[in-house]
């Protein structure tokens, strides 16, 4: 019994659409736009999106004003005839600059106008240089200052920071990106793999309904429920190179060859991040799988036992195929979750040592907020998005994960 929706009922989903629109769709589309610009907010010429060239009239006006002011001083030192020439120059400058008297910031400029202004500036440079050269012995007040002002005028023309697909080309050549992708994939595959095996074992045991399972379940929830940032901090203490108990024990057991190796070598740091992730997420995986196991009809186990199947055969022939749908969905979500890892690594290693544990999220974050390079950071994130799409595609199309299964 499903009814058609009226407009009034559409209003019920409107808030959801607004939230998704404002905090998901709009940011994604905007991020995508960032990728086509050399968008760096710490650089005046690149802190917005300029499709066409722009002209900073305000700065141009100031520069012209300075030139006339400097010429006023210097013309007192030359012959009357040349003074006339200078006054002519000054008159031209005044007339050109008058157009920009009330200009504010940068504005669009046509290419004709731009050419005209460039020609004007070059003529100004040659005329003034010629005048100074005429009097090599006179010590002018502003002989060095005027060329500086003329150089500054060049920056009045703000080039477009539209770069099209160039940043994507840079991404392909960016070894740091590929390394970060490698780290992220290693982290994801190993930690999700271990979590799956351990989680499955735990779920199988919990499914046997033994005594004290309630306690196990409660304890299992705690590492999962505490903030990752807090657990990362706790682990960074346990791994500490001088006073960490885990690094101390690992060193005593001969797993690592010096206590500081846990966080100060890239292999150690990667293992450290994986262990911390496995510690936190295995219980979650176990509970997800347990839910899948509990819907399996117990009668099936009994009949397989009657047929004489051992526990291993039963697991592979009955349990695994039946739990596969929930297993795949759990795996898909865990894989994508591990793939975007940020807080664990940010707090545990900060991506170090020597970028040895830098994940894609960490790299993108550093580009965006440490270097203010929003444009390229967005390109890295798009690269991440593509990999996420490939992972989802593999799970859904190749392995047959049924994520939409609600209907």
């Amino acid at each position, binding site marked *: 019994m*499903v*009814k*058609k*929706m009226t407009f009034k*009922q559409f209003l019920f*989903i409107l*808030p*959801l659409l607004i*939230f*998704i629109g404002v*905090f998901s769709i709009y*940011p994604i589309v905007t*991020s995508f736009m960032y990728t086509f610009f050399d968008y760096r907010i710490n650089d005046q010429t690149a802190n917005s999106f300029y499709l066409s060239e722009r002209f900073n009239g305000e700065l141009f006006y100031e520069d012209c004003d300075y030139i006339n002011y400097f010429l006023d001083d210097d013309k007192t030192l030359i012959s009357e005839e040349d003074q006339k020439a200078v006054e002519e120059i000054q008159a031209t400058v005044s007339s050109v600059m008058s157009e920009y008297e009330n200009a504010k910031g940068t504005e669009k400029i046509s290419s004709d106008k731009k050419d005209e202004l460039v020609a004007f500036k070059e003529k100004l440079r040659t005329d003034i240089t010629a005048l100074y050269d005429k009097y090599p012995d006179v010590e002018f007040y502003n002989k060095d200052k005027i060329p500086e002002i003329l150089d500054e005028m060049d920056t009045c023309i703000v080039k477009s920071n539209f770069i099209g697909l160039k940043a994507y080309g840079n991404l392909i050549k960016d070894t740091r990106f590929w390394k970060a992708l490698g780290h992220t994939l290693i982290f994801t595959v190993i930690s999700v793999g271990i979590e799956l095996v351990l989680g499955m074992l*735990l779920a199988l045991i919990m499914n046997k309904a*033994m005594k*004290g399972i309630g306690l*196990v*379940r409660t*304890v299992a*929830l*705690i*590492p999962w*429920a505490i*903030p990752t*940032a*807090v*657990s990362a*901090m*706790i682990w*960074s*203490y*346990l791994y500490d190179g001088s*006073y960490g*108990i885990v690094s*101390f024990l690992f060193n005593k057991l001969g797993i690592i060859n010096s206590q500081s190796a846990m966080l100060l070598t890239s292999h150690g740091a990667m293992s450290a991040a994986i262990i911390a992730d496995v*510690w936190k997420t295995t219980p*979650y995986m176990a*509970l*997800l799988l*347990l*839910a*899948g196991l509990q*819907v399996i009809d117990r009668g099936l186990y009994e009949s397989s036992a009657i047929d004489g199947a051992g526990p291993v055969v039963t697991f592979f022939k009955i349990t695994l195929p039946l739990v596969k749908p*929930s297993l795949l969905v*759990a795996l898909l979500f865990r894989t994508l979750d591990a793939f*975007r890892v940020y*807080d664990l690594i*940010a707090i545990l290693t900060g991506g170090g040592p020597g970028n040895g544990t830098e994940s*894609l999220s960490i790299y993108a974050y550093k580009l*965006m*907020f440490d270097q203010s390079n*929003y444009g390229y950071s*967005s390109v890295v*994130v798009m690269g*991440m*998005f593509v990999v*996420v799409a490939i992972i989802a595609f593999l799970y859904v199309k190749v392995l047959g994960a*049924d994520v939409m*299964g*609600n209907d």
Partner: protein
Amino acid sequence: MKKVSTFKVVSWIFIIAFLLISVFPFFWILVTSFKPETEIFGDGAYRIIAQHPTLDAFKTVIFEKNILRAVWNSFVMSGFTTLYVIVVASMSAYIISRFKFKGKNLLMALILTVAMFPQMIIIGPVFNMYYSLGKLNSYWVCLAYSSITLPSAVWIMVAHFKQVPLALEEAAKIDGCSTWGTLWRIIFPIAAPGVFTTAIMTFISAWNEYLLSCTMNSNESIQTVPVRIGYLRGQYTIYWNQIAAAAVVVVIPTLVMVLLFQKQIVAGIANGAVKE
């Protein structure tokens, strides 16, 4: 019979190892939190019971490092998030579970995609949006938490609302109840256990959120627990006893939540796995 007992022994060893490993980090920060500064370095670092146990570390993090302020901020942010997410998700889950409309599958696919994509993709534009509205370092940032909490909330709620029998609604409709009234007076109370599970899961993910709050709420007065704890690490010397004490303090709310609501949490996790 022998096989069964071997299985049991192995299971118990596995379970005990699991419990020990799960609990050990918490045990160790509890141990460290009672140590004075002199005992966190050198030989004292590996002693289980402090020679001179003290509450100094707790006093420092509570009175000087304002850790309770962060706990309060986390409560406010997560509380608001849970509130609006439940309202918005109930409204849309009701329509999705009851009515037929064009683009419904598209909407569900969209919700799923939003739940799966890397959060990094939205952080730049969202930061710029809050910056230009002058709302950085404010509780308004909790609205951005919707990108991580709302999709799964809608997803879980749709499953729960579908289980509410239609007959009850028909009766309400005959009695002249509007769609709005039916949702809040009939469906919502009946699906209350599911709603509660959704609320707990939303609260936990908002409580644990790091990326958005670390980027947008970096002022000490507005920092949430996950962000504050990262800032406790000094530049030169790390006072692990203080960090341990802070961790103990901030783990308590989570611990209480897990102990009180474990049934709902387990149900919430299971909802992600089992499909009707």
